[in-house]
């Protein structure tokens, strides 16, 4: 079948050093140059990191290699042969597989059925044929997945494993992973890295697309750094370090250690008492949660997604009803008061899903007053005052360095980082004393991440009480004063920042403490 055929047809070329050579690749999108004469070489059996900020052209380059885009200029050699890759089908035939950030799986089918969908199998009883082949592959690379489980029952890490299996089953010898760790927990990342290394040692060549420096250092053999569509460095990982890579990637010095000056603590601004909240399915998702956040303090909540953080945040911000328990903001009861009332009490909310926080079809200016359009001077309750709105928007655009053609441009033209700046500008500029920030740097590049974190620390030193919910333990550790871990709806432990480390938090997140 597929697998065997591919192995035979490409074994004749195994003497070439590079399995992929991309030469002088140019790709333009409406006069914007996404790839500017990029050269990229992948050696057999190596893990090659492709590093760059958002918009540096990593994904474009990989989409060209996978046949989703066709390059405007340049040549691609696979196993030493000049090829034209016009569709993903061409790429698959050449032994190239890609695992996207978003999985392409049928949730209601089993793992085996999903794999059978991808392969040419017999008409009757297709899963049996798949099973033999897949079990062989799982054995070889140490990839374990229960073939009879329905996909919706699986964790994100397991789904990603199916995607990798899918690519290998189709005969991929060259595997592209696009930001594979962005959806995984620390434990799952370790697992992923283990079998990536194993696959490389078995002769597969892997391209690892990322903007995370730590991962580059940990997993890759070599690294190609992109900035603004150009290659700015090709290095052996063993001969470089995070600082050098960051400088190459961003184009300037980056300060990793944020200065966290001790700040003056004031009274508790956000108090949560024995809170119980249901999820969408009517099950108890938050169980007897109590904590308080004082002014001038960042309270971090760590935990794997789906352990009640979403429901907790929605309850505090008034988006979800509370079953029992109390929420106090600045000493005033805010339980079940609804989102508008909670906001007026001085709560800023940076939502987990950026899509929730803005309206793409409306202008940047309108988005900047999304929560305040009813207030003076932006309106007199009935008529909007566009002069005031635009004046205010111009000020915020400058202050928060939002990169937009004008304040009247629709927000959908902004990049992800600039959308986040826009949301932060709106939420942090009205002097709210309580800030709820959920994954505030999710998907942002190094420069924007640094900016967002500085901003949060600045509001902290100004006396705001900040609740930080994140899965990114580095972020929690570098920002928080106190850290709580949520597991299955409960807070299973709370530590001052000085006593917390990744290992302890990781254990707590996995539920080890809860079971004792």
């Amino acid at each position, binding site marked *: 079948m597929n697998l065997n055929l591919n192995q035979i047809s490409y074994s004749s070329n195994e003497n070439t050093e590079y399995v992929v050579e991309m030469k002088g690749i140019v790709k333009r999108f409406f006069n914007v140059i996404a790839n500017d004469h990029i050269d990229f070489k992948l050696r057999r059996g190596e893990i090659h990191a492709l590093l760059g900020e958002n918009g540096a052209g990593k994904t474009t380059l990989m989409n060209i290699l996978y046949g989703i885009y066709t390059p405007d200029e340049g040549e691609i050699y696979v196993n030493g042969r000049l090829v034209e890759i*016009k569709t993903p089908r061409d790429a698959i035939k050449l032994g190239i597989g890609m695992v996207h950030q978003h999985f392409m799986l049928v949730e209601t089918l089993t793992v085996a059925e999903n794999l059978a969908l991808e392969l040419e199998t017999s008409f009757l009883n297709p899963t049996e044929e798949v099973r033999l082949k897949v079990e062989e592959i799982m054995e070889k690379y140490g990839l374990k997945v229960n073939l009879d489980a329905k996909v919706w029952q699986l964790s994100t890490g397991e789904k990603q494993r199916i995607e990798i299996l899918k690519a290998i089953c189709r005969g991929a010898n060259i595997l592209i992973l696009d930001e594979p760790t962005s959806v995984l927990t620390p434990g799952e990342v370790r697992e992923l890295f283990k079998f990536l290394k194993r696959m490389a040692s078995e002769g597969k060549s892997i391209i690892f697309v990322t903007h995370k420096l730590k991962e580059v250092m940990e997993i890759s053999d070599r690294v190609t750094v992109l900035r603004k569509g150009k290659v700015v460095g090709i290095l052996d990982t063993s001969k470089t370090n995070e600082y050098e890579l960051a400088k190459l990637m961003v184009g300037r010095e980056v300060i990793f250690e944020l200065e966290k000056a001790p700040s003056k603590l004031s009274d508790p601004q956000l108090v949560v008492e024995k809170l119980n909240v249901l999820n969408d399915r009517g099950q108890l998702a938050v169980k007897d949660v109590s904590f308080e956040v004082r002014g001038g303090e960042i309270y971090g909540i760590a935990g794997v997604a789906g352990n009640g953080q979403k429901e907790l945040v929605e309850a505090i911000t008034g988006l979800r009803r509370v079953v029992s328990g109390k929420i106090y903001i600045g000493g005033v009861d805010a339980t079940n008061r609804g989102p508008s009332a909670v906001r007026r009490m001085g709560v800023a909310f940076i939502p987990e899903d950026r*899509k929730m926080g803005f309206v793409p079809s409306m202008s940047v200016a309108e988005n900047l007053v999304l929560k305040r359009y009813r207030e003076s001077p932006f309106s007199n309750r009935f*008529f909007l005052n566009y002069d005031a709105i635009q004046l205010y928007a111009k000020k915020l655009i400058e202050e928060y360095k939002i990169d937009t053609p004008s304040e009247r441009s629709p927000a959908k033209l902004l990049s992800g980082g600039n959308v986040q700046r826009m949301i932060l500008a709106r939420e942090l500029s009205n002097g709210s004393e309580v800030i709820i920030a959920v994954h505030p740097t999710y998907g942002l590049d190094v420069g924007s991440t640094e900016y967002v974190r500085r901003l949060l620390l600045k509001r902290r030193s100004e006396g705001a009480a900040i609740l930080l919910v994140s899965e990114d333990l580095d972020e929690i550790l570098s920002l928080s004063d106190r850290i709580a871990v949520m597991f299955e709806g409960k807070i299973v432990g709370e530590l001052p920042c000085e006593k917390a480390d990744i290992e302890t938090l990781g254990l707590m997140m996995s539920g080890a403490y809860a079971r004792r």
Partner: protein
Amino acid sequence: MIEIKLEKRPLPSRIEAFTYSVISVVFALAVSGAILKVYGVDPVSAYGIIVFHVFGSLPGISETIVKLIPLTLCGVGLTVAFRARLWNIGAEGQLLLGAIAATGVALFSGDLPSYVLIPLMFLAGFLAGALWGAIPALLKAVLNVNEVIVTTMMNYIAIELVRYLIYGPWRGAKEWGYPITDEIPDAAKLICIPGTRIHIATLAIAVASVILIYILITRTTFGFELRVVGGNPEAAKYAGVSYLKIVLLSMIISGGLAGLAGTGEIAGIHYRLRYPESISMGYGFTAIIVAWLARLNPLLVLVTSIFFGGLLVGGYVMKIMLGLPVAMVNIFNGSTLMSLLLCELLLQYKIKFIVKRREMH
């Protein structure tokens, strides 16, 4: 082998959007022209005759304005609903409900003077249309029932309701058993421009509604909320905008304006309730295209209504002067909507044709 790929384009400018609207109309004319040709009529001279009779003669112009009135009212209402991403397919039914209510008020409220009776009829028409819009809105906002299905089906309820009334309880005593109601009293009739059927009051209401709705959408907090709900319902929830309020109000406005159109048809043209297809020649459906061709801009609705009003009159010209079936108008409407949808795709995506060759070497 040739492969076709779609690539995303940058945001279209206003000029591009306008150009594509014009292209889509030209394309529709070409498609209809081809059908005319098959029918044995020369499309160029046929279009010439139609344009001449519709826009070049007084009866043509005045009849175009007569058709423009309900199209504008329904079309403007639909821009409100569509902006909130509520697919109101029920303007036809909402118009008929307005017609029923207006007739009811005119027939059964005794001897009222004109200046009381006519405002009352418009009010009743608005409320009845609004009610017909509010029902699917409530179902949508509270129970998340698909508004396309509910509004579509409620058209049939409205049509059958009209039939029931004219065959049953409201059948006119002085009409020798014909399925129509009695004529409404003179005090309930609108003044028309002499020699035409243009009922000025409704025309004025239509033009005013265009301006008012434009201001409502672009300049008010309600319009802001409407666009937030339409642009991103999740963000609306996050910003504390009440979904129920916006859905309900926008459908009340949408339905109410269609109801006003129904009132105008009764008080200005028919003076009685009659077969639903006689009261409205599908104004509520045509208004969907009117609103889309105007790109949901209320001011442009006035322009597109002129076009489609002329088209409806053109249907008569085709029938009388060229001996063609009126169904040609429906064919034209259909092909316009289809080519509009196609142009929407072309506005957002660039189509690339890729010629597949053998691998090199």
